[in-house]
C-alpha cells in the first residue's frame, strides 16, 4: 500500500513501429506525486513525457509496470469501478486547446461534458451551478457559456480547457504543455489561475512543460526525463541548485535568459548520450537525500557527487 496519491513503478511503454523497429518511449520510470502538489516533468523532446501522461490516464495500455492512484491500481485491466474512478478523479489538459474543444458545442456544454457522462449532479440546476462556479473562478463570464470555442482568444480557450478538467474536482490533473501555445502575459495569467485553484481544490498537477522558468515557478518537485528514463528527480531546489546528472546540468545551462548581452555570448554545456559513456540501463536510483534521486551506477554516483 502506498500513501502517495500517485505511484508509478517501473513503467514501460513501447511502440512497435515496424517488424524491426520498436520505440522504447518510456523505459522503466518510477516516481510518485503527493496530494495537492505539483510535479513538473521536463526533458528532451521525444523523451516520453507526453507518453507517461497518456499511459497514466490510460490513453495507452502500459507495456509493463504499475500505476497506483489513490490506492487503486489503474495500469492493468480496468473494470467498471476502476474506469469510473480514473475518469472522474483524474483529468487531462491538452497543449492545443482548439484541437480538443468541439467547435460545434457551446462552451457551457463542453465544460459540463464530464459531469454529464458520469451524472455528477442531482438536477439541471446543480449542473448549471457547477459550470458557472468554475467559469467564474477561471475569470470567464457566465454569458460566455452560450458561445462557441472559436469566439474566444487563445488564452480564454485554454481557460475553458482547464475549466472542463477542474469542474470534475479531480485529485490529479495531467497538464501536457498547457501554456506552450500562449503568449507570455497570458501564460502568466493561466499559471496564476492554476495555482490559485490548486489552493482551493487541493488538486495535484503533473505539469509537463519546456519553459523551465515556468516549471520552476509552479513545481514543488521536478522529474528530468531523457530517452525514456527518469535520470533525476528532486525538489525544485534540489534540481535547480544542486543538479547532479550531466543531462540535467546541460538542460539547465541551456535556459535562455531575457538579457541579450548575456544571451549572445552564453555557451550551453553540451551533453551527448552516445559519447558520454553512460548507459541508462545499467543505472539504478541513487539517493542524495530524502527527496533527491539520480539514476546512475555506483561509479558514476561517486564521480558526480565528488566536489
Amino acid at each position, binding site marked *: 500500500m502506498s500513501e502517495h496519491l500517485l505511484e508509478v513503478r517501473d513503467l514501460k511503454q513501447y511502440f512497435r513501429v515496424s517488424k524491426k523497429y520498436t520505440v522504447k518511449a518510456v523505459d522503466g520510470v518510477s516516481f510518485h506525486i503527493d496530494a495537492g502538489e505539483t510535479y513538473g516533468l521536463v526533458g528532451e*523532446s521525444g523523451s516520453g513525457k507526453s507518453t507517461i501522461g497518456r499511459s497514466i490516464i490510460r490513453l495507452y495500455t502500459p507495456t509493463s509496470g504499475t500505476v497506483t492512484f489513490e490506492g487503486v491500481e489503474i495500469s492493468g485491466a480496468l473494470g467498471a469501478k476502476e474506469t469510473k474512478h480514473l475518469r472522474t478523479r483524474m483529468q487531462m489538459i491538452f497543449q492545443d486547446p482548439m484541437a480538443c474543444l468541439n467547435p460545434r458545442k457551446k462552451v457551457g456544454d463542453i465544460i459540463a461534458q464530464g459531469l454529464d457522462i458520469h451524472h455528477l449532479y442531482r438536477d439541471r440546476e446543480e449542473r448549471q451551478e457547477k459550470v458557472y462556479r468554475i467559469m467564474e473562478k477561471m475569470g470567464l463570464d457566465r454569458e460566455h457559456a452560450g458561445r462557441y470555442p472559436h469566439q474566444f482568444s487563445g488564452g480564454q480557450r485554454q481557460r475553458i480547457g482547464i475549466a472542463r478538467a477542474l469542474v470534475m474536482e479531480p485529485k490529479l490533473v495531467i497538464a501536457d504543455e498547457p501554456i506552450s501555445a500562449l503568449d507570455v502575459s497570458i501564460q502568466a495569467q493561466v499559471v496564476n489561475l492554476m495555482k490559485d485553484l490548486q489552493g482551493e481544490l487541493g488538486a495535484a498537477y503533473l505539469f509537463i512543460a519546456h519553459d523551465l522558468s515556468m516549471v520552476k515557478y509552479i513545481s514543488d518537485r521536478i522529474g528530468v526525463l531523457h530517452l525514456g528514463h527518469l535520470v533525476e528527480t528532486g525538489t525544485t531546489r534540489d534540481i535547480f541548485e544542486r543538479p547532479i546528472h550531466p543531462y540535467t546540468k546541460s538542460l539547465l545551462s541551456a535556459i535562455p535568459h531575457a538579457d541579450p548581452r*548575456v544571451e549572445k555570448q552564453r555557451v550551453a554545456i553540451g551533453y551527448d548520450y552516445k559519447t558520454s559513456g553512460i548507459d541508462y540501463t545499467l543505472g539504478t536510483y541513487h539517493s542524495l537525500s530524502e527527496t533527491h534521486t539520480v539514476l546512475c551506477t555506483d561509479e558514476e554516483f561517486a564521480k558526480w557527487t565528488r566536489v
Partner: protein
Amino acid sequence: MEKTLTIRDLSVSFQATGGTVRAVRGVDLDLYQGETLAIVGESGSGKSVTVKAIMGIVSSNQTIDSGSICYRFQQDGEWTETELLNLSRNEMRQKINGTHIAMVFQDPMTSLDPTMSIGMQLMEGMMHHLHYSKAQARERALELLNMVGITDAEKRMKNYPHQLSGGMRQRVVIAIALSCRPDILICDEPTTALDVTIQAKILELIQEIQKKTGISVIYITHDLGVVAKVADYVAVMYAGRIVEKGTVEDIFYDPRHPYTWGLLSSMPDISTDAPDRLYTIPGSPPNMVDLPAGDPFAPRNPFALEADFKAEPPTFQISPTHYAATWLLDDRAPQVEMPESLRSRIQAMTEGGGVCV
C-alpha cells in the same frame, strides 16, 4: 547592408460574422540581408497575418487594404526587385515560396500531410524545385534530419507524422523549410514544442546557416529568451500595429512603450527565487472588430494619458534605430517612468554584466 524586404503601410482585414476584423493596421517593417528580426506581441495582434502576407497566403475572407511588400534579391549577381503583393498565387508558389522565402508555420501538424511519410514530404520539395533525383533528395533529406537532431534518421524517414513526438514534428517542418535553401526564412513560433537544449541547437543551426549563406530570418516568438539570443532587431505588436521597434538592446534595456513594459514584466525571472504571483497585464485583449477610439491599449494601460483615449498615437522616433507609438513620448506628456520592478531588473542586467548558470 542590403535591404531585402521592405514592408510599407500594410493593412489586412477579414470579413467575419461579427463584422470586419482589422487584423493588421499600417505596418512598416524592414529586413536586411543576413539580419534576424523578431516579432513579438500579444496573441491575436497580427503577427502571423503579417508574415503570411509576405508568403502570399491569403484566406478567402481576407483583403489586403493597403501597402506594399518589396522583395529584393540577387539573381546572377544582379539585384532584382519584386512587389510581392502584385504576384498571383501561382507565381508566388512557382517563383518565391520555398526557394526564395520559406516559412515554418505555427502549428507543425497542419503543415505536415498525415498520410505521407516524413521522408517523402522532405524529398518532394527538393525534387520539384531543385530538380534533384530521388537518390539526391534522399541523401539530403537524411542530412537535414541529422542537422535538426533527429536520431535514427534512416528509420524515421518512414514514420508518419503521428508517430513522432510534438518536438520531432516541429523539427521535421524546420528541415523542410531549410531544404530548398531560401534567402529568407520565416519561423512562426518554431521552437515552442522543443526543450531548451534542442531549441538552442536549432537556433544555433539557423545562426550557422545564416553566417555561411547570409540568409535573413524572421522569428515570431513569445519566448523573450529566444529573442535575446537570436534577434538583431525587434518589433513589438499590439492590436495590429507595431507599437515599438528597435535593436534588441533598445527593446530589452530601454523599452519605451507601456505594453513592452508589461510584456517584459510578465516573464518569470529565472535567476531569482520564484515570486508568489507572476505579473500579468490587466484586462483582456481588444476586440479587433470594434476597436475603441484612441489607443487600443489605453484601457489596459496603467500609464494611459487622456490623449490615449481620444486619438491613436503616431510613431515617435527615439533614436535612429528606435521607434515607439505612445503619447508618453509627446513633448506635452508628463514625465512617466517604467515600473520600478522592471527598472531594477534592467539595472541588474546592465550592471551585473550577466551572471548565469
